[in-house]
């Protein structure tokens, strides 16, 4: 690269770097990274337990408490039509959370377990909502308060509707 030189007022030689190629490359890089950027929302996971395999082997796990059964019924289009918490009908997921909160009060939540009993055609978003509402809540200061973390599924009722 040829460096440009210039004399200043005192007569000393000053070296001038040619910045143009570097700026060109920088902008190329910048444009490349800007175009390849894909913004994904943060994702999180929920641990679930699936006891189907152990049941098939005929070795039911010993439990201190029977699981709390959350029954979710669906209409023919897969929308949620009814929520039952151990046979008790509930109006909303919020009510489900309140009931779970009451059940957890003063107890060791690690011994509690929720079993989701869903219709086959029920949309997965409702299942996730139920899991969210039984596994915890965000309190006033923004912290997550955990409720029941052990969640399992019962085999789905019914079959696919064409």
């Amino acid at each position, binding site marked *: 690269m040829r460096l440009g030189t*210039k004399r200043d*007022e005192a007569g000393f030689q000053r070296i*001038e770097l040619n*910045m143009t190629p*570097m*700026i060109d490359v*920088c*902008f190329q*890089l*910048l444009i490349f*990274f*800007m175009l*390849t*950027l*894909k913004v*994904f*929302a*943060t*994702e*999180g*996971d*929920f*641990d*679930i*337990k*699936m006891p*189907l*395999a152990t049941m098939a082997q005929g070795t039911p796990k010993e439990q201190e408490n029977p699981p709390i059964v959350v029954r979710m019924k669906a209409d023919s289009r*897969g929308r949620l039509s009814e929520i039952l918490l151990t046979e008790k009908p509930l109006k909303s997921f919020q009510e489900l959370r309140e009931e779970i909160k009451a059940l957890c009060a003063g107890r060791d939540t690690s011994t509690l377990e929720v079993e989701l009993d*869903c*219709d*086959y*055609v*029920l*949309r*997965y*978003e*409702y*299942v*996730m*909502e139920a*899991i*969210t509402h039984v*596994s*915890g*809540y*965000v309190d*006033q*200061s*923004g912290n*997550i308060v955990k409720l029941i973390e052990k969640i399992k*599924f019962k*085999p*789905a009722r*019914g*079959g*696919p509707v064409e």
Partner: protein
Amino acid sequence: MKVIKRHVTSESFSPDMTPMIDVTFQLIIFFMLTINFVTEDQSERIKLPESELAKPPETPWESPIVLQLTAAKPPSVIVGGDEVSLSLIRGILQREKQRLQELGRSAAKATVIIRADRDAHTGTLQKLIKECQDLGFERFVLRAREKYIRVTQGT
């Protein structure tokens, strides 16, 4: 504002490039750090359900296998960029299991991450889990998109 008079020769006029180069480098570094080349595990076809409790795991999962269940009819699963019908998933899982065994790991310790579409049937999801269980996979996690909720004081 004080105006600084500079001696400008008639030969060249060179503006101060330093702030611009600084900003450009900052931007390049930002984009380099946020770039994500591994997008095959996050298919844009899958619309994940939202949950306010969905937080990224603190420690990475052990031998993760990402299965993406679509809401298509008939249901299909996207594994490592390939889309297969739910009825053919067993072969792929078998291959994954073999791969794990070659690496000296067991299927029981591997974590199956399920990214299911919010409109997928619950029964289909359970079928997928059953297929995994039949091959010895035991650990499952359901993935959801983080939902931001506004925390209101005093409610």
